[in-house]
Each structure stands twice: as C-alpha cells, then as structure tokens.
C-alpha cells in the first residue's frame, strides 16, 4: 500500500531497516501493539468490559496470532478446566494445602495436561498443534494463576465472567492484529497511526462519562 504522506521519517526508517534485514513481522507487531493496547483501553473505559488488566489480553491476542485463535481458545479452556478440576479435587479430598504449593500443584497438572495434548497431536492430526511453541503456552499458563486466584477468592461466576471478558478483549485485539489491509495501512502510515492512537489515549484518559455497561447497570436510575 502506498503511504498517504510519502517520505515520513518513521516510514523511511522502516523501509531502510527492512531492506537491511529486520524482520517485517516484528516491525508490524511493534506498530500494532500500541493500537491493540488502545483498543483494550477503549473497550474498558468506554464499553466497560472488565478483564485481567491490559497486559494479559494483549499477550493473549499475540498468542492467538502465533498459534491461531481456535487452538488458543481450546488450549486456554483446557487449562481452565484442568485447574478447576484440580481445585475441586484438592477441596474434596480435604488436602488442606498451603497457598503456594497449591498453586504449584495446579501448574504441575496444567503442564502435564498440555504435554498430554502435545503427545496426542500425532493421532489428532490437527496441523497447528504441531507448531505450538513454549511462549504461547507459557502465557496461557500465566493466565491460570490469575484465574485460580479469583476463583479461590471470589465466586466461580465472577472468575468465569472475568475470564470470558478477557477472552473477548483478546479476540477483538486479535482481529486488529491479523486483518491484512489494516496491517498494510499501519506499515505504510506509521506516523498517522501512532499519532492517532496517542491522541485517542489522551481523549480516553479525559473521558469522565458513564461507560456503556454502566448505562445498563444504572438504567433504572436513569429512567427514574
């Protein structure tokens, strides 16, 4: 795609660095990351979707880029199910373990579970499964600690809804990360996209009105 303003300094730098061998994908991801962060910030500040911070959905979306969203969600659900089962079992057996060993044990089972899935891959014959690298698995496993912590403290319902909302945020970000024409536009116009996200974040930071979810939450109050 041709840039809207030709000869921008960042654009020129990108062109020359790609020419000298810097991987194009890395540059695209670096340029898209602030956009993804802005999208997450906007959905939280304006729509009111909650979720585990800004890092987790962003990391999860990049995981989705790496291993595909379907496998990503499958692995993620597998991890959540494993950790929940372990938690229920330790509670039923009245093992009464202390917090950190209990968390370590949950990770133990999660690792074993994912290993099991990987061992099964020759039989399942699902292509993307063979390309799973350690980085996405690690990110998914990191999520487990947050999930379990919320599950331990708050209700199961809250944990599920927070995790679900994190997944939704990650999927929205994933769409931004993988939509080809958008990628091409960002690569061609780095100055415009960077300035726009900067300005949007300033505006978002100054927005004091109700979030969309709060309009729903307080609808009876607004009607009264």
């Amino acid at each position, binding site marked *: 795609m041709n840039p809207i303003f030709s000869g921008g300094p960042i654009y020129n730098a990108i062109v020359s660095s790609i020419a000298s061998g810097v991987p194009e994908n890395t540059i695209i991801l670096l340029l898209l990351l602030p956009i993804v962060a802005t999208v997450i910030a906007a959905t939280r500040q304006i729509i009111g979707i909650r979720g585990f911070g800004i890092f987790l959905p962003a990391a999860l979306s990049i995981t989705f880029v790496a291993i595909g969203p379907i496998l990503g969600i499958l692995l993620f659900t597998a991890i959540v199910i494993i950790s929940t089962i372990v938690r229920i079992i330790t509670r039923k057996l009245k093992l009464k373990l*202390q*917090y950190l060993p209990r968390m370590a044990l949950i990770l133990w089972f999660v690792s074993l579970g994912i290993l099991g899935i990987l061992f099964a891959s020759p039989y399942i014959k699902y292509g993307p499964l063979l390309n799973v690298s350690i980085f996405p698995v690690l990110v998914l496993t990191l999520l487990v600690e947050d999930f379990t912590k919320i599950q331990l*403290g708050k*209700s199961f319902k809250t944990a599920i809804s927070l995790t679900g909302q994190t997944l939704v945020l990650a999927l929205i970000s994933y769409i931004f990360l993988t939509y080809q024409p958008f990628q091409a536009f960002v690569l061609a116009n780095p100055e415009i996209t960077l300035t726009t996200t900067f300005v949007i974040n300033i505006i978002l930071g100054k927005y004091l009105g109700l*979030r969309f979810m709060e309009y729903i939450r307080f609808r009876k109050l607004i009607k009264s």
Partner: protein
Amino acid sequence: MKTSSILGLNSRRALFTGRYNTRKAKNIANSKIQTAKVLKNNNVPTPQIIHKFKKYEDINSFDWNSLPDKFAIKPSRGLGGDGIIVVKKKIENGKFLTTSREEKTLEDFKLQIIDILEGAYSMNSEPDVAFIQEYVGRHTAFRKLSFRGTPDIRIIVFNKIPVMAMLRLPTKESGGRANLHQGALGLGIDLATGITTKAIQYNRPIIFKPNTNKKLNGIKIPFWNIILETAVKAQIVSGLGYAGVDIVMHPDKGPMVIELNAQPGLSIQLANMEGLKKRLERVDELAVINVDHGIKIAKSLFASKFVDRVKYREDTPVVKAVEEVLLKDIKGNWHKFLAKIDTGAWSSAIDITLAKKLGLLRKNKIITSRKKLSSLGEEERPVIEVNLKLSGKRFKTNVTVADRKLLRYSVLIGRTDLQGFLISPEIDKVNLVKSKWA
C-alpha cells in the same frame, strides 16, 4: 434522572478518589490493622484486635488456649471480605462453630493464617498480616432482618459531610456476608432520619425481604446520629477526602467502624435511587467547620421527601412535672386531664371515679390486681389497660386504679411509662395547675 447525576467508575477516579485520596491515606484504608490503629489513637470506636500474626513463628508463640469463644480471623489487606472466618461458638472436643455453621478446629485456623501470611487473599498475592479480632455480632434491631452474619452500614463521607448511606443485610445467598456482589441486600437510608427507603439485591430493586413478607423500607436504624458522627470522625482521621466508612452495631458497645474504603462501590446509588455525583458536586469545596456542621449540612441537603411526614424529633421529648395527658375512653374518644409526673412511683395510677366515668373499670377490663402498701394500710388495687398520649407519644400501658379523690391530680404517671422522656422539674402554674378544690 440525568446521567450526569450518576457517578461512574471514570468520574469516581478522576474527580474524587484520585483527587482527594492521598497515597498515605489509601495505605491506611487498605490495611485493616493500620485502620484500627489510626481509629484507636483518635478515639473512634473500632472492634478490638486481640492478636496479630506477622510471621509464621507468631502462630506457634500465640497461646491458642487464650482464644475467646467468639472471634474473627481476618487478613489485613483482604479484598471484598475474602479470607475471613467468623467464629461464634466453642463446641465440644476443641472445635469451633463459624457463623456459616461450619465446624473448624485450631488446625484449620492455623492453616488459614498461613494462607493469609502467604498472600492468598491480598492484592497481587503480596505477603500479608493476619489478625484475630473481637466478635461483633448482631444488634437486636437487625436480628430478624439478616441471615447469620453481621449487617453493616456503608456511609460515603466526602469533605466531612455524609453524602449517602446504605444498610447491607447478609442473606442466605451471600453466605452470611454483607457483600452486595454475593447477594446481600442493600437498603438505601434517608440521611436525615436513618430510616430505610428502598432496597436492592443483585442490583435489582426489591420491596420485601426474599421469601418473606417483611418490608424493607421504613426500618429505623438505632443511634443514627452517633453512626453519622462516627463515620465523619473516621473519614477525618483517616485522611481520605472521599471515603466509604463501614459501620457495624455492637449489641452492647454501639456503632463501631469495621473498615474504611478508599474506592467505595457505586451500587449504593441503586439502593438509594439517587445519583452520587450530583450530591458530591453540591458539597464540593464547602467549608465545613466540624463534625456536627457536616452532619447538619447532610441532613438539610439530603433529606428524603417523606421526612416531614415522619414524626421526627431531633431531641428527646420533655415533660414538665405536671403535664397534660390524653386518655381514651371506652367509646374511643380522647379526654384531656392533668397528670402528675412522679419518678418516685413505679407504675402509673388513675383515680377510681375517673376510671369508672371513662368506662374503663369493668370486671372484664381488670387485668390483675396489685397489693399495695399505702398510708391507708394494705389494700388490693385493680390494674387496667389504658391508651394514653403524653407529649405527642401514644402508648398503651397498665395502670393501677386507686382512690385519689383527696389528691390533687386524678392521674399519675410513674417510671415505667416515662422511658424516653426528659423530665423538667418546673410546673407551668398559669396554664396547667388548678386545684381540685378551687
């Protein structure tokens, strides 16, 4: 209501908690132990901390036999009431019964404390401090309203002014916790009178207590003025400009601050059906002199519309040594008499001829008879029930019937009926006192 009247998460942080709550004050509020220390040093009532556990060794060095029968184990930096065990009874073979009717042993308590120390309940899993706190229990006013746990009163105090209040009642769904997310009831409170107005559960309006026909509005919270004073004092000493003060009613010791919140929740607006932002804007930057001033501002600005319909008196009613009373006769008509207010007498008395005239002294009306020793020797006096009004208060009471024809006043009000009145020793000679023989 305009949406600009409602406080949302964005405006709460940018306009209030972010602007008025310093980091130091937030640190105090986020730690229950520090909160208790600050409150205690400033003579604001708070439940007593029996023991603190900072290190693992503290668990072994603590004399577990000194544990009282009722207590609570809490994390200092717990979130949303997590990690709390409340014990209300010691049962056989060294076991304890919690308010959620679970049996726990000392081993369970030790394990819970280890969990707390490791940060299982704190923000970001940071190591925490555990403590054992005095048990508060339920005040009689709330006994029939709440399920097992201790109800609490959340008051948003901003700039020394109470801005909105809510009574939180634990339910079966909330597992005896006063936590709205878990299904506790939130009852809006009129700031002027301390009477509940509206109610919500899971952010939805309700009228009756679930599964009962008990109405949730119109409940008068006892010691309302003291509660407001305690809340404002707590806000001032905490250093938080915008605070959510949680108050519990100790059955014997009265209102106490159990927790401070630097980021109090927004559902209180639904419980009251009022917008917080508008109220906050009305009192922003007012120069408030002291606690009483702040409460007066709140009461005049934020009173509910029903306040003028409520027979509401700020002060205790005063009766003079001789006071007019109204008595209801058998037909239901009220008659005015002069009564002697006699704190030397136990029960009230009425003259026999007057009782007959009102039609109150009939065989089937006599409840019992009392043996009385008087200057005339021992005699049996009948006791009847009368409806009477004294200084605007109407009540039913049992009075003894006596021959008072030689005495100046045909009605005497004794101590049992003077609860809740102040007695002024003066006698209004011009308006009231007329001698029987005059």
